[in-house]
C-alpha cells in the first residue's frame, strides 16, 4: 500500500474506532436500564437482556482494535487488527440482519408473512452495528490490496520468520 492509502487508512479507522467506542459505551450505559431507542438508532436487548451488554463489549473491543491499528497501519500485524475489528462488526451486524430475515418470513396469523409485513420487518430502527457495517467494508479494499502485493511479493512490511 502506498503512503496515501496508509494515511487515509490511519485517519479513517481512527474515526471509525472512536465512533465504535462511543456506540459501545452508549450500549453499555443503555444495558444498565432497559435499553434505549433514539430515532433510527436502537439499543435494546431483544428477548435476552444479556445480549445488550454482550454487544456493548464487542463494540468496545472493535473500537480498541481499530484505534490500536492506526499506528504504522501498513504493517501486516496492525492491518490484521483492523481486519479483525471489521470481522467482529460483520458477525454482530450479520446476526442482526439474520434476525430480521428469520422474523420476517413467518406470519402472525398465516404460515407466511404478507408483503407489507415482510417489508415492515426491515424498517428502522437499527442497532449501532448495522450503521457501522457499510463503513467497516472499507477494510476489504486493504485486504485485496495486501493480497495483490503478497502475490506479487512486493511491499512486505511484516517481520520475516
Amino acid at each position, binding site marked *: 500500500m502506498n503512503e496515501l492509502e496508509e494515511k487515509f487508512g490511519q485517519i479513517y479507522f481512527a474515526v471509525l474506532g472512536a465512533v465504535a467506542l462511543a456506540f459501545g459505551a452508549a450500549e453499555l450505559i443503555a444495558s444498565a436500564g432497559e435499553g434505549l431507542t433514539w430515532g433510527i438508532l436502537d439499543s435494546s436487548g431483544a*428477548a435476552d437482556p*444479556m445480549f445488550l451488554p454482550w454487544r456493548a463489549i464487542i463494540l468496545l473491543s472493535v473500537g480498541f482494535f481499530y484505534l490500536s491499528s492506526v499506528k504504522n497501519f501498513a504493517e501486516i500485524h496492525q492491518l*490484521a487488527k483492523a481486519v479483525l475489528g471489521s470481522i467482529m462488526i460483520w458477525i454482530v451486524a450479520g*446476526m442482526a440482519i*439474520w434476525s430480521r430475515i*428469520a422474523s420476517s418470513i413467518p406470519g402472525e396469523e398465516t404460515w407466511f408473512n404478507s408483503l407489507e409485513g415482510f417489508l415492515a420487518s426491515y424498517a428502522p430502527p437499527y442497532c449501532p452495528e448495522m450503521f457501522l457495517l457499510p463503513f467497516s467494508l472499507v477494510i476489504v479494499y486493504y485486504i485485496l490490496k495486501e493480497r495483490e502485493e503478497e502475490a506479487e511479493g512486493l511491499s512486505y512490511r*511484516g517481520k520475516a520468520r
Partner: protein
Amino acid sequence: MPLSVDERWNLIEKISKQTVEFGARKHTLKDAIAELTVKPLTGIPVAIAVLYGIWSFFVDFAGTLFTDGFMVRLFDEHWLPFLQNAFHNNLDNWAYRLFIDAGHIENGVLVASDNCLEAFGVLTSGFFVPFGVVLWAVLAFYLMFALLEDVGYLPRLAVLVDTVLHKIGLHGYAIVPTFLSLGCNVPGVTATRALETRKQRFLMITLLSVFVPCGAQIGIMQDLVPELMGWIFLTLAIGYLGFGFILNKIVPGKSPEIIMDVPPYRMPMMKNIVSKLWVRTSRFLLVAVPFVLLGCLIVGLMYLTGAMDWLATVLGPFLMSWFGVPEETVSPLIAGFLRKDLAVGMLGGLMEQGIMTTFQVFTSVVLLCIYFPCLATFALMLKEENWKEFLGSIASLVAMVLVYGGLIHLVGIMLEVA
C-alpha cells in the same frame, strides 16, 4: 536399543538440519490474523464475538424461524386438534390420555390441553419435542460447530482456553468435547477418547454430564425462559469451573501438557459441512427420538397408575426444603432420566399453571441440567468408564447436585427471591 525421549529429539534435530533448508518466510495477512486470534488480549474479544454469533444464529434459526414460526403452528393448531377430533377428545379413555392428551386439572376439572408441550401424549409431545423443537436447535448448533471446525477457528479457541482448562486438570482440546456436548452429550462423551489420561477422561465425562446442557435442552429452555438463559449459563459455567477445580484436586492421576497442531484458516467446503451435518444430526435423531417417545410413555403410565403422585408426596418435602422447588417438579425430574428436553418441556406446563415463581423456574431448570445425565449419556458412561470410575462419576454427580442445588437455594434465600 530403544532411544530415550531426549535422544530421539536430538536425532530429529540432527536429521532436520541436514535435510531441511530454512529460509525467511513472508508473513501474510492470514498468518497475522491467525496469531492475533490465539493471543489472549486480542483472541478473547474475538472469541466473545464468535460466541455471540453462534448464540444469535441459534436463537433466530431454531427459535424464531422454525419452532415459533412454523412448528408451534403446525403442531398446536393442526396436529393436536386433528388427533383430538379424530379420537373424540376422550379424556376418560386411558389409551387416549397416554397417546394423545393427558389433560390437566383446572378448577378441579380435567380439561383438554391446547398445546403439544402440555398434552404429554406419545403422539403429541412425543413428536413435538424432537421434530418441532430439538431438530432445529441441534441442526443450528451442528452447523455452527462444523463451520468453526472447518474454518480452523476451533483449534485456536482450544489454545486460547488452554490456561483456564489447565486449572481444572484438562487442556485446551477439552473444548471440543464440551462444544460437541452442547449439541448432544453422547458424541461429547465419545470425544473424550481424545484426552490423554484416565483422570482427564473421568473429569471431562463427569463435568460434561452435569454442567453442559445439550442442544435439545437449550432449545426448549430458550423457548420457555429466554429471559433467564444468561443466568442459567452463568450458573452452569461457574459450576463447571468450580467443581472441575475441586475434582482436579481430589482425583488422583496426571494431567499432562500436549502439543496441538493448529491448522491455517481455510475456506470451508460446502460438501464437508453438509456431510458432517447429516451424520451428526441423523445420529442424534436416532438416539433422541426413541427416548423421547419412551419418556412420554413411562411418565404417562406413572401418572395413570398414581406412581407419580406417590413419588411427589415422598420426595416433595425434601425437594421443597433443600432445593426450594415445589413437589410438582418431581415428575419432570423423573422424565429427565430419559430425556432432559422433555423434562424442561414439562416445566413449561407447570409454569403456565402458575405453580412456580421465577426463581423456582430458574432453580428447577438448573437442577434438571445438573441432577443426572439422560439415559443415553448414562449408558455411554457405563461403556466408556470402568466400574470404579463409573461409581466415582455417580458419587460426584450426587454430591455436586446436592451441594450446588442447595447453594443456589441458599443464594436465593439471601437475595430474598427464593
